[in-house]
């Protein structure tokens, strides 16, 4: 078992938040650079932009598989091409790609001929094709997403606190931008399936953040008067750390199986999921609660038990209160265990001392 309980995650919150900020800024820079060099931050797929459609007949003896056609196309940065094979006439293929020049079209035809087999020359032509996701639909989708985020914010604000909601949304934005940064960097084509992957990330990130927030909420209820907000926060993160880790691993198993067995046709889909999964796990542990601690300055002035103060000051002596405290309530001793081993040691040594004294 990992020694998670002793980790001081909140203590390093400046570093962890800085890492998040840097990741976010990197994504923004990548998108800006792409925007100025490629004219758009993202590689919009044929669903968005429209493009060309090829209707070709292969003249090979054996029917050609979709996978081999895709293999050839991915060499031309057309990973997101929609490839359809006629079931009744397997030699016939319909391929939809983003807009390309005449020269590139010829290159693709030649590559297909070279690597797969000859194509009926009568079918060596292309036609323009319009987008299936029009500009209106795109605007609508953005609006929908914003509305969904707003509702989440509202729900978390009601069930938790407003700040918690803001924090969760910021984590979500972080995860999305990191994923989008990767999409932009590797020029992954945005199509319906990559949008689905991005949505999945949002769902995952949200789930992860709320589970941690729930723990903070619960611990606040029990320890509000005994510990500082930062201490409660650290305890909450460390106790849910294993859960976050285990859940991420199981989800990762699913994603990796998909990546491994479904191969190149799903490479973009699984890449986005993978990046989002890592970002989502990071943000829930190292962004959501640390950010809340930063916003919680006024809570630093809190009444604390004497023994904790003494502990921090390094004087582990005196005070019978510790013993009283530990014998009174089991749960509260555990807090001490969570915070530091020294607390336990102190109490045990004290017990021993007491025993000696009695003798």
């Amino acid at each position, binding site marked *: 078992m990992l020694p998670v309980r002793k980790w001081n995650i909140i203590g390093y919150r400046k570093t962890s938040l800085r890492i998040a900020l840097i990741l976010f800024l990197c994504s923004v820079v990548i998108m800006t650079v792409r925007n100025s060099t490629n004219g758009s931050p993202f590689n919009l797929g044929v669903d968005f932009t429209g493009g060309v459609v090829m209707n070709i007949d292969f003249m090979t003896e054996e029917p050609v598989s979709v996978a081999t056609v895709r293999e050839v196309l991915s060499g031309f940065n057309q990973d997101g091409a929609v490839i359809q094979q006629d079931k009744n006439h397997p030699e016939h293929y319909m391929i939809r790609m983003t807009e390309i020049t005449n020269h590139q079209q010829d290159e693709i035809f030649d590559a297909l001929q070279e690597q797969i087999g000859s194509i009926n020359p009568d079918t060596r032509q292309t036609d323009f*094709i319009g987008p299936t996701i029009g500009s209106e639909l795109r605007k609508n989708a953005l609006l929908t997403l914003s509305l*969904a985020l707003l509702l989440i914010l509202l*729900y978390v604000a009601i069930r938790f606190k407003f700040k918690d909601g803001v924090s969760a949304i910021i984590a979500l934005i972080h995860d999305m931008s990191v994923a989008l940064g990767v999409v932009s960097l590797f020029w992954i084509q945005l199509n319906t399936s990559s949008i689905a992957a991005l949505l999945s990330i949002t769902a995952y990130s949200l789930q992860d953040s709320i589970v941690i927030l*729930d723990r903070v909420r619960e611990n606040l209820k029990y320890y509000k008067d005994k510990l500082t907000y930062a201490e409660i926060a650290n305890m909450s993160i460390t106790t849910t750390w294993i859960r976050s880790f285990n*859940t991420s691993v*199981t*989800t990762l198993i699913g994603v990796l199986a998909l990546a491994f067995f479904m191969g190149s046709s799903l490479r973009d889909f699984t890449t986005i999921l993978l990046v989002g999964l890592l970002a989502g796990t990071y943000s829930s542990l190292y962004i959501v609660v640390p950010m809340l601690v930063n916003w919680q300055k006024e809570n630093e002035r809190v009444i604390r038990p004497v023994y904790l103060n003494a502990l921090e000051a390094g004087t582990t002596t005196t005070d019978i209160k510790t013993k009283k405290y530990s014998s009174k309530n089991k749960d509260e001793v555990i807090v001490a265990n969570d915070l530091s081993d020294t607390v336990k040691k102190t109490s045990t040594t004290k017990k021993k001392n007491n025993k000696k004294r009695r003798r």
Partner: protein
Amino acid sequence: MKRIRWGQLITIVVVVAISLWSIVYNYNSNQVKYGLDLRGGVHLVLEAEAITTSEALTEEKVVVEETATETSTENNANDEEPVEKEVTEEKLVVTNEDLNASTETNQITSEELKLAKIVIEKRINALGVSEATVSIQGNSRIIVDIPGYSDIDQAKDIIGRVAVLTFKDEEGNVLVTGKNLKKAEFAYQQMEQTGPREPIVQLEWDEKGKELFAQGTQNNVGKPISIFLDDELLISPKVNEAITSGDAVITFGGKNEESIKEAQEVAILLQGGSLPVKMTFLEERVVGPSLGQDTIKNSKIGAIIAFLAIILFLMLIYKMLGVMGALALLLYVIIYLGFLLGIKATLSLPAIGAMIISVGMAVDSNVIVFERIKEEYAKGRTFLSAIGAGYAHGWTAIFDSNFAMLLAMIILYSFGTTQIRGFAITLVAGIVAALVTSYFFTQFILSFVAVNNPKVSGKLYGLKGPEKDD
């Protein structure tokens, strides 16, 4: 907290039984729907005005403009405009140069093509065919992809059916049909001398239509008239006064962007009821899955291996608790599939994304509770009490995270496109199935074990008691 909840068991047994039935029934009757990417479907190419040749088109690259929504209007204002007295119409500037292409030749305008696309989309959506896509190809063709269908005739039937435009009164009596509608156009109209220009739709009837429309409006002054395209209600404007001239105007109460958009859409659909272009089927094909047959076969293997790996992982970490979790996951898969097949959801790539996430969520519910049980046991609770506490404390986290997700998915479903809808519905199904199995089922089975064997070894369940002081 400590008693066994038999109600949970009964619920689960019933749900699993229904799910199993749904799976068997849908598989046997071959009603599982897959998206174009997973199974393929029917691919149709429609040609508007069949004579244009594709050779000619590839030479002249005329790009179809997506945003061509503005239409030109003829200045045919007359004094008998029924709605307002002093009507000043303004001619709209033609922004799309393609519109200048003469309509007398075989060439159809991009506006007409776009209109045809919208009508076909509406028609397919009205029939509840999920995840169908319609796109414009070249400048005279429309591609329609309908996933999951293999019956070309049935698909052609859906699209080829002529949409009927009907005007009905409150009782549902048909007053007049689209056959007699000569023209429906979007325009702007100045309501008062100094007032704002409001979006309107102008209607123009032929002789017979004029008569029927006059009669219909006479009988329904002050009441709404509903306009249907097939079975879909487009709009039901109120009749202000009897309209006998044959020219009518529908106003949309405002000049904001929304009413402009609505007016444009209604105009297009009213006009589309009497499609100006002749559509013929140029190509009809049954296509294979766009992801490729091999990929599909591999994905099944991948899913099974992922499932086994997750189960193994759970058992390794949580011992007997993990076994319970694995059992729950098995039931989860049954309920999940049963539900998806039951509601006839289309299984496609977005849905697979949702599935992976929801499997993660199902396991997550388990992990949250199991970790909590471990913690509580380590505090010195008994096995039974640790289980009770684990489920009680885990509940708020599970409830809140799932409920927030549910809200988000409802929004996505109500406003999203068909594919996004597919995603949302798949995820919601996953949330519900996960809750039933990973929370309620494991809660039942663990409390059952704990109550009946109070001295069960915590070690067997991967639990460690409190570290002893002495």
